Structure formats: structure tokens, C-alpha cells
């Protein structure tokens, strides 16, 4: 039981930190521009594909460094020559733009890389168990994923709260005109944050690609969960996104690892049903089966009881 709990916690943290790498960029971009970037997870997918291609010729580590840089540059260009121009037409136009961009990226990936799953592998250097506990192995690559994610979290925290650039970003989010009056180029700051946000999504794709498989639907799989995270955390709240990412990562991991189901609950209540009952599938459902639905269930609960999200603020 203890080993299940420990490994579920470790895996939950790995997933949670990975989700935060995506959610942090999404929620920062929302804070600044007031628009939810529907194409955010597509940049995550681009990261995985660029890294896959680079790894074929130059190895995994080259992909790890250059793929996020390429994705970040693309993201900055999208903001400069796309979103900024659409911004004048209002939020609906921006939403439609990012929605269209998500389709464009997915179709482009299928066009250039095909529809099949890519054989994007973890590097040989990390192909060993980091430790063995109760006879179970925890791979070095998962440890590496966790280290990268925690490193990014600390760097992001430091830059945003301690550095001058971070102070300017914080101020530009709430008072862009005042910051501009003080001599800071706010559009350039926004472009930079968009670029860094998409680069982080790209980095998440690079490190998640070998584990969660690299295929054209990977943006769809994770994209909706990332949206759930920023809403549960509170739109625009970085700390909220962090808490929600870990919460969902751990929740899903514990659910998958658990061995509990409806039959256990019903037997506790002294109720039993025939196998031939029309709703047999429902009565025999177990927690691992409903694990993928749990984030959405949590979203519904948050929307009912705290519509602003965990740390979100109601708009004045």
C-alpha cells in the first residue's frame, strides 16, 4: 500500500509539474492580453515534433535546447504579426484567431510529419532506474522530467517576483499605460512573455513527447486539461495554476493507482446487482476508469462553489 502511495505521489508530481509548464504560459498570456490562447497546447505539440526531428540528426539533448527556442520564436512572431493586429478587433477575433491557429498547426504537423505516432525515444543517458523501492523502479527520465519542471518553476518564480523584468511584467499586466508612460516598451514585453510562454509549452512537449507519445492528437489530449487547470486555479493567477496543476496531477495519479470501485462502495452499503442488470457497467465502474474525467468533475465543482477559481479575483 505504501509503495503504491509513494509511486502515485511521484508520478502525480511529475504530471503536475509538466502541466504547470503549460498552464503557466497560458495563464500569463491571459493576464496580459485577456485572451485564452486556444493554440497554446499546439505549441506544446510543436515542441515535441521539433525535438523529435532534431533528435534524429543531433540527438535528444540538442532537441531539448533548440526545440523550445524555435517554438518560442514562432510564438513571438505569432504575437507580433498575428495577435497584435487582431487585438484591435476585440477578444472574439482573438479567440477565433487562436482557434484557427490550433487547427493550422495540427494540419501542418500532419502534413510534414504524417499521422502516425513518432518513435521519439528517451535518451540512452537516462535509460536506467533512478531508484528501486519495494521492488518497483522509478525511471531516471521521470526524475529528469521532474527536475526540469521544478527548475523552470523556481526560475519563473524568481524572474517574476525578484527581478526588474518580472516587476515590469507584473505592473504591465494591470497598468500597461502607466508602465508605458514610464518608458517601458509594453508591446515588446507582451511579445516577450508570449514567446517565453510558448517556449515553456514547447519545452513541456520536448520532455513529455517520449513518455506520453508524440502523435498529432497530443495537443488535444493535454490542451483541454490545461484549460481546466487555469480555470480551477483562477484565470490569470500563476499561483492558482501551480496549485491546480499539482492537484490535478496528483488526483489523476492517485485515481489510476487506486483499486477502489463502485462494487466496493455498494458492498459497504450492502447492495448488490446481477451481472445481467442493464446498468451493470455503471455498478462495476472503478476509480482508474474514471480518472480521465476527474479534472472535469473538479472543474464543475469549482464553477459551482467558487466560480472565480481557487485564487482568482472577481473582476471589478
Amino acid at each position, binding site marked *: 500500500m505504501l509503495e503504491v502511495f509513494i509511486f502515485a505521489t511521484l508520478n502525480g508530481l511529475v504530471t503536475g509539474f509538466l502541466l504547470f509548464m503549460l498552464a503557466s504560459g497560458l495563464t500569463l498570456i491571459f493576464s496580459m492580453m485577456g485572451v485564452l490562447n486556444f493554440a497554446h497546447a499546439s505549441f506544446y505539440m510543436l515542441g515535441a515534433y521539433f525535438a523529435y526531428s532534431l533528435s534524429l540528426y543531433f540527438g535528444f539533448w540538442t532537441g531539448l535546447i533548440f526545440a523550445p527556442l524555435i517554438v518560442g520564436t514562432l510564438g513571438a512572431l505569432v504575437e507580433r504579426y498575428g495577435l497584435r493586429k487582431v487585438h484591435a478587433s476585440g477578444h472574439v477575433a482573438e479567440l477565433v484567431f487562436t482557434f484557427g491557429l490550433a487547427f493550422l498547426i495540427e494540419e501542418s504537423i500532419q502534413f510534414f510529419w504524417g499521422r502516425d505516432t513518432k518513435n521519439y525515444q528517451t535518451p540512452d543517458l537516462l535509460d536506467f532506474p533512478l531508484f528501486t523501492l519495494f521492488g518497483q523502479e522509478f525511471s531516471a527520465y521521470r526524475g529528469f522530467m521532474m527536475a526540469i519542471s521544478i527548475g523552470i518553476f523556481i526560475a519563473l518564480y524568481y524572474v517574476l517576483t525578484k527581478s*526588474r523584468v518580472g*516587476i*515590469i511584467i*507584473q*505592473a504591465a499586466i*494591470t*497598468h500597461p*499605460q*502607466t*508602465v*508605458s*508612460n*514610464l*518608458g*517601458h*516598451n*509594453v508591446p515588446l514585453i507582451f511579445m516577450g512573455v508570449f514567446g517565453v510562454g510558448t517556449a515553456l509549452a514547447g519545452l513541456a512537449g520536448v520532455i513529455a513527447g517520449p513518455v506520453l507519445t508524440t502523435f498529432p492528437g497530443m495537443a488535444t489530449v493535454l490542451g483541454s486539461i490545461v484549460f481546466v487547470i487555469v480555470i480551477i486555479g483562477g484565470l490569470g493567477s500563476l499561483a492558482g495554476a501551480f496549485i491546480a496543476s499539482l492537484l490535478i496531477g496528483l488526483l489523476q495519479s492517485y485515481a489510476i493507482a487506486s483499486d477502489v470501485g463502485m462494487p466496493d462502495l455498494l458492498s459497504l452499503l450492502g447492495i448488490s446487482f446481477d451481472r445481467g442488470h442493464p446498468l451493470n457497467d455503471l455498478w462495476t465502474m472503478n476509480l482508474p476508469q474514471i480518472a480521465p474525467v476527474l479534472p472535469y468533475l473538479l472543474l464543475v465543482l469549482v464553477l459551482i462553489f467558487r466560480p472565480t477559481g481557487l485564487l482568482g479575483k472577481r473582476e471589478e
Partner: protein
Amino acid sequence: MLKVSDLHAFYGKSHILQGVNFNVAEGEIVSLLGRNGVGRSTTVKTIMGEVEPHGSIQFKGNEIAGKKSFEIAHLGLGYVPENRDIFPTLTVRQNLTLGMKTNTPQGRWNIDEMFSMFPNLAERADVQGGALSGGEQQMLCMCRTLMGDPDMIMIDEPTEGLAPKIVEQLANLLQEIANRGVSILLVEQKLSIALKISNRLYVMGHGKIVYEGTPESLLQADDVKAEWLEV
């Protein structure tokens, strides 16, 4: 230093500034007076690039009409807005840091000097800006703009809602700023501070300059005061 010629500005279809002309020389304190709604704040917002200008605005010989706010600030024009707009979640020190255009303070002012001039701000250096009193926020806002080492600052209604003692402190600061060679355009409704510290005054009415003179000449121009200033 600043020369505004035939400046027009619009809010939607409303024609707010209807050909404003005035100038501010180097090291001069000039006040822009007038009742609420005559276009004083719109004038400084238009100079700063917040409102689209139609006409000519020359600052240190450069045409700045149509430039972006941050470009204008980089040329050396500072602006202290009417609503103060301090960053409420940032500390006093962080607010001041934001005023600097580069990583290190340059020119006439630095944080330690600001703190010695305003011990209240020094005592609350690590307190969030939102927790300061109105007077402290006004001082912080002025200091923040000065940290960018402007050659001229435009200050919109700095005495609004402040206690007489703080207004006195503010007048001393404005004098100190001018003594260091920084020109000041003071937008005010209250005559007292404007008459006390200004070299020249302009009175606005219906989106235009309707009077230009010195504090002494305005004191004697009872008709101007009655028609354009008294409430």
C-alpha cells in the same frame, strides 16, 4: 523645451481640444489652470500619446505628436497622472525601481535620495503601494517618475484630496525639482499652489487657452478669474 501648436483632440465625436497653443521653457514651472472638463487633463494625455493628437507637439526640438508613450518618455518627458496609478501590489521600493528606464539609476535622482527627501516612504520601503495614504501615494508617484530622470514632468492635479500640510510638502518638492533644471507643467484647479510656485500660467476654457500671464498678472485679472476659474 515643450511647444504645443494648434493641438486638437477628440473622444469619439466630441471635439475636446480645439486648437491649444502654449510653451514651457527650460527650468520653468508653468501651470495649466481651469475648471473641470475644460480639457486640461486631455491636453497632457494627448502630449503623452495616450490620446491621438492632431497638431504639433515639439519636445526638445523633436516632433513627438504620434509617437508612442514609451518613446516620448525616453526622450525625457515624465508624466504623473491624476489618478496616481501606483502599482498597489508592488512595494514602495519596487514602484521606484519601475521608474528607472535602465537597470541602474542615472542622472539627477536615486532611491536613497528619494528616501532621504521623504522619510515616510523610507519607513515603508517594503510595504505594498496600495497600503499607503493618498499623500504618500502622490509622493511615491512623483518620485517614481523622477527616477526615470526626465528633463520635464507634467503633473496632473497633484493636490487633489491632500491635506494642507502635504500640499506644502509637495510645493517644496516641485520647487526642488525645478531647481535641478527639470521643467514642470502643473495641471491644477487650485489657484493657491499654482500662484505660489509658477513662473507663468495658462488658463483653459472650452478646449482652448483663454489666458496667458504671470501669477502677479492673474491675481489682478478679476474678470479672468470670475469667468474661467471661480466655481
